């Protein structure tokens, strides 16, 4: 008989064993821990059923206890996107179990068993849907087969329902009674799958299991990790990007009670080496006090001469270049040959991710082995990083991932774990590196800044030519000599519009300011320009912006449906309320189509978004409540990036430092949001960035509608519009 032993990481201090068991009994499973059962320091054997029984796995996702309890593993780290619930829902659908009664646990970080566990680009559901259905269905078939064999009946007389196999005669066996026999069978390779019309779990707004642990402080994040013998590190960083440590005096730092060591450290960000001096102490406050007492001499390499203005000057100069063609059709040289030609240049700043949980990582390096605990979007990447850096086998790196206090792309990077491992190696103890908010905001990496140059012509009420040139840094090509722009730069530029002559091109920038993936990535800059410019073309053509778009998407039923639904839900074609401006935009991101209408009004001389209506087509929707939540969250993040904040550079560094000067949208400023989900049976697509990149163009188009002022530079100041 196979028995799994569930190991888990230390509990983070706030949950004594008794309380842990109580929470286990109350909320189910090990959810309260929120930490993957990887290779923990205080491993212990347990079962999923407090009453005992034996846990038997049917595959790497599904464990059934002989008492009938069902445990489903979620193999994708949770940062708020909802896969913690969505992945088990897909498994449960095919497995035929009561989704309210299952246990959910984060799986081990184990790419050999689970493949990639990286959570980026809203891809978890997109890429895992088919596999998860197969896993659920294969386990169900094994249970059916076990029942048929036990009863000596035909397989097609055995039906799976709510954790039981029921024979046509009415007799029943629970999954717990069958699991041992089922586990000895060979899993079928192509088990039959349910028709979407028969789904009972998928498509239901089922409450998320991680929610209760997030209302009583029980959920464990990277910052909450406690490891025996652990020290804390705070790292002093260069006053400019890329500064090098010349020397440091740690006398005063070491005099701070609790400080144990001061060491130089470094990490890598997309090819750039970033140096720092780490103060290591037996508590975090002491490490921070020691850091303040540190004296470091930096070689800044003359970078302080740089600012946002010098970067923009370079971008503008390079915008005159022809650029590398990324997508084209027809012949754009005919522009101006007929019709009305318009041009516009759009500008967007760098943006910080600002995860509410500041960056941190806990790593222990000892005797040729390493162990990581923390919040990461990229557990496999951290394993590779630590193995490479420490020159050890990946199998000697244990990864324990926790809940993340936000990710947004920042936590796909492995640099903070690298820093923690480097310091742990030097001081010979487990180390938790904790970044301050100031570190987070000033160090980046950031969303790319960009210049978008658009040129187009309309004739006879239609677009005849459109050129869109993107001038920006590219995430995967930030250092070295290769200067050719890649297709990554054109994210968010809609080439589905039927425009006879079009050209999308890129002019690559290389820069000392580090960039990385940021929720919805280039869509958030390019789509602002593209969908604003489509609006400008609609105005030039004298057309209604929705009708204008529909006319160019006649052969695209999904965009058409999104636009028509949006028009219907906002009463777009009805009489418009006095004093209201409306703006629309559409886009495709991670396979999902979204359309958004923002309505604005003027209050006390200030433009204010008063209502946001979003229509989302994600294909088959696993959990509509999660899709709504993601859309609401995307809207807030989009509004922040549109009119609350943008990174400013002065003297080779970020000018802002914390929430007082890098502002977030507030509770009070959040307008009412309505989200409508299109029902269809297309394959499920990514919902995690739903609508984020619609916000800037929809809002700016609405502002134009109300005031006649065209916004082409973000962040905009709502106080000075019109």
């Amino acid at each position, binding site marked *: 008989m196979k028995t799994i032993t569930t190991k888990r990481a230390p509990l983070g201090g706030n949950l004594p064993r008794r309380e842990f068991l109580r929470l286990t009994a109350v909320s189910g499973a090990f959810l309260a821990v929120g930490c993957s059962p990887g290779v923990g320091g205080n491993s212990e054997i347990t079962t999923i059923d407090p009453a005992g029984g034996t846990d038997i796995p049917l595959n790497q996702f599904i464990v059934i206890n002989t008492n009938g309890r069902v445990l489903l593993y979620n193999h994708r780290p949770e940062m*708020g996107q909802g896969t913690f619930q969505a992945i088990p829902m897909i498994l449960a659908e095919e497995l035929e179990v009561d989704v309210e009664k299952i246990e959910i646990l984060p799986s081990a970080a184990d790419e050999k068993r689970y493949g990639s566990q990286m959570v980026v680009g809203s891809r978890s559901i997109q890429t895992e849907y088919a596999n998860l259905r197969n896993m659920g269905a294969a386990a169900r078939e094994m249970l059916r087969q076990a029942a048929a064999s036990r009863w000596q009946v035909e397989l097609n007389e055995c039906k799976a329902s709510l954790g039981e196999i029921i024979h046509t005669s009415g007799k029943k066996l629970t999954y717990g009674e069958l699991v041992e026999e089922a586990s000895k069978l060979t899993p079928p390779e192509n088990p039959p799958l349910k028709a979407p019309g028969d789904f009972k779990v998928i498509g239901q707004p089922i409450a998320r299991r991680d929610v*209760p642990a997030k*209302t009583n402080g029980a959920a464990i994040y990277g910052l909450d990790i406690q490891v025996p013998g652990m020290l804390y590190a705070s790292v002093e960083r260069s006053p400019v990007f890329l500064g090098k440590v010349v020397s440091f005096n740690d006398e005063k730092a070491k005099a701070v009670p609790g400080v144990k060591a001061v060491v130089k450290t470094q990490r890598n960000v997309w090819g750039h080496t970033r140096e720092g001096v780490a103060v290591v102490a037996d508590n975090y*406050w002491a490490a921070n006090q020691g850091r303040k007492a540190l004296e470091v001499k930096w070689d800044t390499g003359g970078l302080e001469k740089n600012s946002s203005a010098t970067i923009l000057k370079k971008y503008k100069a390079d915008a005159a270049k022809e650029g590398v063609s990324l997508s084209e059709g027809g012949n754009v040289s005919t522009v101006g040959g007929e019709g009305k030609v318009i041009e516009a240049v759009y500008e967007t700043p760098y943006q910080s991710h600002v995860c509410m*949980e500041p960056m941190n990582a806990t790593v222990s390096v000892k005797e040729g082995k390493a162990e990581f605990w923390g919040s990461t979007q990229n557990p496999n990447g951290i394993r590779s990083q630590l193995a490479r850096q420490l020159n050890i086998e990946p199998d000697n790196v244990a990864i324990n991932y926790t809940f993340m206090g936000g990710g947004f792309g920042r936590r796909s990077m492995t640099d903070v774990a690298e820093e923690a491992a480097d310091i742990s190696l030097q001081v010979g103890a487990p180390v938790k590196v904790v970044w301050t908010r100031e570190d987070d905001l000033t160090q980046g990496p950031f969303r790319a800044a960009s210049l978008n140059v658009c040129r187009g012509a309309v004739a006879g009420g239609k677009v005849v030519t459109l050129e869109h040139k993107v001038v920006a840094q590219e995430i995967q090509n930030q250092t070295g000599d290769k200067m050719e722009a890649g297709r990554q730069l054109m994210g968010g530029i809609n080439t589905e519009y039927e425009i006879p002559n079009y050209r999308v091109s890129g002019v690559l920038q290389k820069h000392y300011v580090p960039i990385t993936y940021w929720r919805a990535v280039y869509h958030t800059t390019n789509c602002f320009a593209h969908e604003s410019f489509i609006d400008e073309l609609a105005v030039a053509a004298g057309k209604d912006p929705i009708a204008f778009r529909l006319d160019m998407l006649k052969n695209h039923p999904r965009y058409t449906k999104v636009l028509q639904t949006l028009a219907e839900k906002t009463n777009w074609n009805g009489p418009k309320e006095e004093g209201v401006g409306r703006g629309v935009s559409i886009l495709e991101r991670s396979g999902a189509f979204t359309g958004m209408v923002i309505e604005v009004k003027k209050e006390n001389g200030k433009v204010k978004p008063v209502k946001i209506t979003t229509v989302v087509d994600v294909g088959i929707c696993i959990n509509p409540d999660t899709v709504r939540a993601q859309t609401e*969250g995307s809207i*807030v993040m989009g509004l922040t990036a549109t009119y609350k904040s943008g990174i400013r550079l002065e003297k080779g560094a970020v000018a802002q430092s914390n929430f007082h000067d890098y502002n977030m949208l507030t*509770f009070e400023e959040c307008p009412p*949001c309505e989200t409508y989900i299109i029902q269809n049976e297309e394959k499920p697509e990514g919902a995690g960035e739903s609508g984020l990149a619609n916000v800037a163009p929809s809002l700016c188009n609405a502002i134009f509608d109300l005031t006649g002022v065209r916004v082409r530079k973000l962040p905009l100041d709502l106080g000075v519009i019109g």
Partner: protein
Amino acid sequence: MASLTLRINNRDYPMEVDPQMPLLWAIRDFALLTGTKFGCGISQCGACTVHIDGEPVRSCVTPVSGAEGKSITTIEGLSDDNNHPVQQAWQEEQVPQCGYCQSGQIMTAVALLEKHPQPSEEQVNAYMSPIICRCGTYVRVKRAVGKAIEINQKA
């Protein structure tokens, strides 16, 4: 360094700490109650909100020495079974996404409703607006505050 005892959630936590250390780190790293979160360190986000003698305070800028002898309540002490009306409302409205800021949101909402059981929109805004949520759960925070008022009325 000083020896002091913090009274948190009706339990005593003796500790040896720098009296100037913010209460936040005493709660997290010495009392090992990690439900209270670090977000900014300068009283700008509200993730670290706890109650001292019933009043909401930002523990990241409150020296630990100032909290000695007072009654501190953290998210872990709000209820025994995660069933305070505000917690119930947060669960019913499925507020949290990443969840990191929610201890601060909940502790602030509890303080709001204790002071103003029937708050005006201005009072709700005044309490809740300073608490930052990067996931953007504000739409649901708003609904959940309304739901908590409902639950309180039924009780």
